[in-house]
């Protein structure tokens, strides 16, 4: 009886799997996949002429509007060009991301656009794609080793960090702060962007008499950021007057912590903190509009996603290739302040 029960329940598992197979969301042909004579995945030219170009979008995480914008920008562009976008998310797990990329290659993707969890670990996946004649592009998070990377698009972290530093100086002049003490929010140290934004800001701060009184290591986790920010406030005795955040998705925990101490105030009020950040997400733009945040460095992430997808599609269909320094394309950042926050061109106003 117990064995029968086990067998019945096991068969139920199979039924779940077959049911899921029938409800699969990919528009794939129903015929059996044939063994290919070579071990490498067949290129687009050898498939049926009517088959759309398949591009895999491997997202490291979707924990912020920035990530959502990147995903949506890339996926929409691929669809607009007539291709098929397959999106996978690894929730911050580098091992899972590597596995997902292998599965995307097995699904017949001709190219992968990757927002990496770990820009060092992802090189192995890029090499795997190379070995299987699949193009590999990075968006936003760019590895230091581009040997196996076919294309990389990102933002100028140095420019962004310095824009934020200059905004702090400008804000200090406006409100009359002379002794600048800054709490710095740092992202995940496996993210090359976070490392550069920290390093460049630290260098700017050192040259311009901005004292970094505390660093909040966030691992790109809002809850972690909130707890550690509160600890930093306690450690500094509340003696700080500006904040630099490597991403404005951390404005939510900043708002939470400052609200508790009645320090979430607009410019001109007592206790005002000069808050700057990077990205330009809708929430950040709203906070600028309301007067709480002084400036953010705008990184049009939807444009980044679309540009990456456009170039990758061109590489697949037309065989365009980038070599050497041409592989790395940097997009400039702009500033968003209270003066231009209503500009319709800002991605945060359109997302």
């Amino acid at each position: 009886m117990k064995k029968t029960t086990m067998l019945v329940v096991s068969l139920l598992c199979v039924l779940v799997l077959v049911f899921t197979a029938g409800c699969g969301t990919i528009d794939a042909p129903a015929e059996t996949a044939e063994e290919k004579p070579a071990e490498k995945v067949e290129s687009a030219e050898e498939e049926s002429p009517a088959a759309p170009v398949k591009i895999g979008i491997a997202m490291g995480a979707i924990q912020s509007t920035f990530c959502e914008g990147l995903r949506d920008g890339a996926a929409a562009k691929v669809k607009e060009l007539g291709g098929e976008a397959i999106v996978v998310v690894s929730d911050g797990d580098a091992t899972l991301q590597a596995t997902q990329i292998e599965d995307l290659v097995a699904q017949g993707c001709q190219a992968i656009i990757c927002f990496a969890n770990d820009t060092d670990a992802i090189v192995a996946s890029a090499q795997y794609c190379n070995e299987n004649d699949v193009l590999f592009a990075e968006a936003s998070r760019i590895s230091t080793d581009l040997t196996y990377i076919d294309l990389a698009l990102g933002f100028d972290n140095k420019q962004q960090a310095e824009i934020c530093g200059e905004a702090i100086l400008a804000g200090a002049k406006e409100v009359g702060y002379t002794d600048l003490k800054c709490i710095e929010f740092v992202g995940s140290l496996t993210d090359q962007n976070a490392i550069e934004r920290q390093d460049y800001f630290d260098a700017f701060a050192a040259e311009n008499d901005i004292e970094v009184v505390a660093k909040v290591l966030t691992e790109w986790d809002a809850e972690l950021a909130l707890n550690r920010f509160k600890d930093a406030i306690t450690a500094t005795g509340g003696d700080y007057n500006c904040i630099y955040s490597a991403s404005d998705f951390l404005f939510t925990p900043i708002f939470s912590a400052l609200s508790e101490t009645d320090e979430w105030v607009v410019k001109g009020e007592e206790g005002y903190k000069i808050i700057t950040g990077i990205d330009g997400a809708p929430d950040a733009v709203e906070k600028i509009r309301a007067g709480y945040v002084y400036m953010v460095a705008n990184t049009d992430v939807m444009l980044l996603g679309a540009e990456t997808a456009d170039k990758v599609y061109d590489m697949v269909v037309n065989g365009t290739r980038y070599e050497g320094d041409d592989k790395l394309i940097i997009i400039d950042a702009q500033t968003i302040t209270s003066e231009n926050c209503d500009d319709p061109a800002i991605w945060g106003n359109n997302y």
Partner: protein
Amino acid sequence: MLTGGFGRRLKFGGHMKGFTVIKNWIRRYPVAVVAILAAIGMSIFVPGFATSTNLTAVGAQLSYIGICTTGLAFILIGGGNDLSLGTAMSASAVISGLVMINVGSKMSTPLGIIVILLMGMLFAAINGYFVAYLKVNAFMMTLITQFLFRGLALLLTNSLSVTGLPEGFVMIGRTTILGIPISIFVMLGFFIVGQFLLSKTTYGRKLFATGANEKAAKLVGISTSMVLFKAYLFGGICNAVSAIILVGKLKVANPTMGNDLFLDIISAAVIGGNSLFGGKGSIVGAAFGVLLFGLISNGLNILGVPYQDTKWIKGLIILLAISMDTINEKLSARNMLRFATTEDKKAHAKAK
């Protein structure tokens, strides 16, 4: 003297036909049937599944999970548990990585292998000592060490991956033989060795006895603490070998690389018939559990099932597996009681 039950078996079991052998094997490893059916079904219904590229990739993906599952199966059969598997894997890998890049000589690869094996065994020994000898609850102990090992890995690396590893070390996990990753052969080797240890050695029998009823096992003279401790050590070796393969896959020693693998590993073990209550299981079952769970994961990815749905689907499957295990455990207990009562009745009838 033939009792009713034994006589009944003799009547039909005197001629063991092939069909009976197969039937018994299916009854013993129902997960094998499910796994084989799933593989056949996916080959037919899932485009891209039955290609050499995908099968090779799936095999390589399953290899480190399969090796870890072998180790965990030993621990579960002995009545223990180990939630720190994944984080111990990460910690072993980064410590070994740091040693290798600091040594930076021709001996760095062999040294790295020795270090990773030693670290794997050390972490396992810590768990094993507290659980087997000091009788700390296995769940709580390994939950604590999960945090300890995770913290250790992040502290030593400042949350960064250890890069610049020797090519020789990385290639261990990336070498192929006739196009098949060597890690698959290593996994099969662990399955064979593990099943042999469980079914053909005295240690295996002692392990089952310890997990089934520790008090009874002690009464018959089994050193249950040592038996369980050795199971943890074996699990540590399996973990360390998995770490070597995973480092080869990523080409870096990432401080969080194994942190989320525990659920996959324990799911495969339980699906394969290894009971969370101890005393029951096999490596053959675990192997098919790994295969089935891997097929499901791969199938969901290839079918393009949204990642949000893969979470609850996997959770549902794990729930089914654990429910099976719990139902099986309750039915076993009830049947044992019923059998004893029947035997008493028969013995009483014969005496009349």
